[in-house]
C-alpha cells in the first residue's frame, strides 16, 4: 500500500506542475467560464474546472483576474476572488507578489471597487506603507471600505486637534471627515463634537432620507392577509380620492417627519392600529437616469414600488429594525420618480411588537446620499410639505 501511495503522490505531483499547454484554455476563456456562473448552481461545471486551471496560472495573471470583476456578477466575483487569492497566496510565499502592479490597479478609480479593495489588501501584505500613501485620497471613494478608512484617519486627527485645544482646526478636519462618512457609527462620532462646538448638521440631508410623504390607511391586514391584497393605492394614485379602509373611509394626508434619521412613526402619524396597512408615497426628482439603492429600515412587512414597478416585497414582522436594514437596487429615470411603500402591521400583542414605522433613504452603492432635486429634506421644520407634491 505504501508503494501505491508514493506512486499516487508522484502522479499527483506531475499533474500539479501545470496544465498541458497544448490543451490549456486561455485565461480569457477560463475567466469567461467563471463569469458564467448563475443562480442555483448554473454553470458550476465549467466554472469549477476553470478555477482549478486558472489557479495554476502565473502571478502575472492577477491584473487580468482583477479586471474581470468589472463584468462579473457578485456571485462570479467571489469565484474570481477565490482564484485570485490562491494565486496571490502562492506568489506571496514565493516572494513574487508585485506591489507596484497591485497599487497601479488600486489607484485607478475606474476599476471595480471590490477588486480594488482586494488588490489593496494584498498590497498591504508586501508593502504596509501603502496605507499611509493611498488612504488619505480615498475619502469619497466608490468603495465604502476605503471611505471608512479615510474617514477614520480624519476622525482620529480631528479628535486629537480638539483635545489639544485647536478647535477651529479640529472642526475643519471633522467637517472634512463628514464629507466621506457613510457609516452611522462614524457619522455619530463626527457629529457629536461638531454639535458641541455649535455646528449645525442636517443628518436627513447627509444620509438622503426621504422625509415628506403622503399617507393613507389603515387598510385591513387581519391575520396578515392584507399583504397580498392589492388595495386601491396599488392601482391608482389619486390624492383626492377616498376609499373604504379597515374601519372607516380613508383619504390621503400629508406627513413630514422631523426625525433626523427620517423615521416615519405610523403609530403616531395615524394611530397604533393593529392588523393594518398604510401606504406611503413620495416623489423623487432625479437629474438623470441613474442606478441607486433604496435603503429601508422597518420592523414591519412591506412592499416597495418604483414608478409602478414592484421592487421588492417582504412579509417579516418584528424581527428588528435598523438603518439600511434592506438595500434595494433600483434604476431611477430622469425627472420625476414615484416611490410607493406599503407598510403592514400584524396583531402581535407583545410590547416589543407595537412598532409600526419605517425610514427610507436614497443613496449610492457606497451609501452616500442621493438627493432629490425637487425637494430638500432640510425643509422639515418649515411646514412646507407641498413642494414634494407639486405637479402631481
Amino acid at each position, binding site marked *: 500500500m505504501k508503494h501505491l501511495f508514493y506512486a*499516487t503522490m508522484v502522479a*499527483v505531483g506531475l499533474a500539479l506542475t501545470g496544465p498541458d499547454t497544448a490543451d490549456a484554455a486561455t485565461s480569457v476563456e477560463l475567466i469567461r467560464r467563471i463569469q458564467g456562473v448563475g443562480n442555483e448552481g448554473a454553470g458550476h461545471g465549467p466554472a469549477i474546472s476553470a478555477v482549478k486551471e486558472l489557479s495554476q496560472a502565473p502571478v502575472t495573471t492577477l491584473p487580468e483576474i482583477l479586471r474581470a470583476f468589472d463584468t462579473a456578477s457578485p456571485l462570479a466575483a467571489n469565484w474570481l476572488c477565490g482564484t485570485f487569492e490562491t494565486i496571490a497566496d502562492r506568489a506571496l510565499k514565493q516572494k513574487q507578489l508585485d506591489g507596484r502592479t497591485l497599487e497601479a490597479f488600486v489607484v485607478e478609480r475606474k476599476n471595480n471597487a471590490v477588486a480594488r479593495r482586494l488588490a489593496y489588501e494584498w498590497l498591504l501584505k508586501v508593502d504596509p506603507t501603502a496605507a499611509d500613501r493611498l488612504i488619505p485620497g480615498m475619502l469619497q471613494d466608490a468603495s465604502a471600505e476605503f471611505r471608512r478608512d479615510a474617514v477614520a484617519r480624519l476622525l482620529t486627527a480631528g479628535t486629537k486637534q480638539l483635545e489639544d485645544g485647536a478647535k477651529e482646526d479640529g472642526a475643519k478636519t471633522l467637517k472634512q471627515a463628514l464629507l466621506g462618512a457613510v457609516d452611522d457609527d462614524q457619522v455619530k462620532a463626527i457629529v457629536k463634537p461638531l454639535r458641541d462646538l455649535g455646528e449645525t448638521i442636517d443628518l436627513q440631508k447627509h444620509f438622503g432620507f426621504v422625509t415628506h410623504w403622503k399617507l393613507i390607511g389603515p387598510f385591513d391586514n387581519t391575520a396578515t392577509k392584507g399583504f397580498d391584497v392589492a388595495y386601491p393605492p396599488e392601482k391608482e394614485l389619486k390624492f383626492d380620492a377616498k376609499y373604504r379602509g379597515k374601519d372607516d373611509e380613508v383619504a390621503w394626508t400629508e406627513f413630514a417627519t422631523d426625525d433626523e434619521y427620517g423615521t416615519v412613526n405610523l403609530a403616531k402619524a395615524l394611530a397604533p392600529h393593529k392588523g393594518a396597512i398604510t401606504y406611503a408615497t413620495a416623489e423623487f426628482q432625479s437629474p438623470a437616469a441613474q442606478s441607486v439603492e433604496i435603503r429601508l429600515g422597518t*420592523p414591519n412587512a412591506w412592499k416597495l414600488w418604483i414608478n409602478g414597478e414592484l421592487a421588492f416585497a417582504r412579509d417579516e414582522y418584528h*424581527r428588528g429594525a435598523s438603518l439600511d436594514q434592506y438595500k434595494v437596487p433600483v434604476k431611477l429615470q430622469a425627472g420625476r420618480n414615484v416611490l410607493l411603500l406599503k407598510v403592514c402591521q400584524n396583531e402581535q400583542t407583545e410590547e416589543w411588537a407595537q412598532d409600526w414605522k419605517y425610514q427610507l433613504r436614497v443613496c449610492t452603492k457606497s451609501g452616500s446620499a442621493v438627493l432629490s432635486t425637487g425637494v430638500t429634506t432640510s425643509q422639515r421644520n418649515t411646514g412646507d410639505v407641498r413642494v414634494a407634491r407639486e405637479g402631481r
Partner: protein
Amino acid sequence: MQRFIQTLGLAVVLVPTLVFAADWRQFRGNDTTAVGDDTPIPTEWSADKNVAWKVPLTGRGLSCPIIIGDRVFVTCCSGYRQDRLHVICFAAKDGKTLWERQFWATGRTGSHPKMSNASSTPASDGKHIFALFSSNDLVCLDLDGNLEWFRGLMVDFPNASNSLGMSSSPIVVGDTLVTQIENDSQSLAVGIDVATGESRWTKERPKRANWTSPAVLRGTKSADDLALLQSSAGMTAVNPRTGAVVFNYDNGASTIPSSTVNGRTVFIPSRGITALQFAEGSANPEILWRGERLNPGTGTPIVYQDSLYFVNNAGVLFCADPKNGDIKWQVRLEGPFSSSLVAAAGHLVAFNEKGVGQVVKLGGEKGEIVSKNDLGETILCTPAIVDGAIYVRSDEHLWKLALPQ
C-alpha cells in the same frame, strides 16, 4: 496526456480516503451528537494552565471550530457591515495560520448585535470545507484553501433571510450537504451536491424563523442515513440525496435548541422533550415518551453514557433517563448559555456567555461541578472536542485547551 490522465485517475481511485476518526467535522461533531472520545481532557484551565495555544481571529463569529485531521477551521466575518467572509485554517499542533481566504457577502448581513454573519458552523466531508454564513453565502474550499465552488443562496432565494440573523448549521450526509434556511418570509431546505455545489433538491419549509440545525439519523448502512429537519411545525426526516420525506412528526418543536440523536432514538425539543424511537431499518418511529418538564434553553440536549442532559433557560443542568424521561438529578450552573453541551472522557463541558467553561464530572450519584474556568471573553459557540483537546472561539480568539503533552 490522455494516458497520463487515465493513470492518474486509476491511482486516485485506489488510494484510500484518509479518514481521521477523531475529526469533528460539523456542528456537534461528525454524528451531530456532541460526544468526543475517552482521551482525558483538561478539567481546569486559565491563562497559564492547559492552554496549548491561543490565536487572534480576523473577525467576529459564533460558529464553532471544526477539526479535520491536523487542521482546525474557523469562519469569521469582518467589516462594519459584516460583509467580509473569512475561512481560516490553523495547524492543530501549534495554532499557526496555514491559510486564510475571504469573500464578499452577496446576501443580507445584518443581525442582532449578539449574533453575527458568521453564526453557522461549517461542515466537512473530510476533503472539503462548506462554510455557510447568515448572508446565505456558501463557500466550498478544499483543505488547502483552494476554491471549489461558491453559492449565494440569497441570490437564489432573495427573501430567505432573517433580520435577527440566521445560525442553522449545515451537515454533510453522504455526499449531500443539507442546509436549512428557514425564515418568516421565505423558508427552504436545500440538498446540495458536495462535488458541484448544484442543488439536488429544494423543499419549501414552514414560514417561521428557525435557528435549529439539521441532525443525522444513521441507518444500518450509509445509504439509509436520514437528515432530520426540525422546525416550528415539528420534525421531518428526509432522504438526504433526494429530499423525499420518509417521516413527518407534526406536533410542533422549538425553533432554537435542536434535536439530538442517540442510536435510533431522536430527542426533539417538542412539548418539553419528545423521544421518538425508530426501530432498526424502519423510518416509522413511535413516541417513546414525552417529558413536558424537560425544557432545554438555547443549547441542544446531549445523550452521553446512558443519560440525557440539557441546560434550561435558568442555567440548570438536568440529567434525565433517556429511556423514560425521568429526571435523575439537576445542578445549577452559572449561566446564561448560548452554546450547547459537549461531552468527553466522563465529563460535560458547558461554556456560558461570559466565557466561563464549567466542567461537570459524571459517574457518581449526581454530576459534580469540578471547575469554573474563565476565558474572559464572550463565548457563544459550542466547543469541539478532539483527541483530548477542547477548541473554543470568541469574537476575538481561538483557543486550544489541552493537557500538557
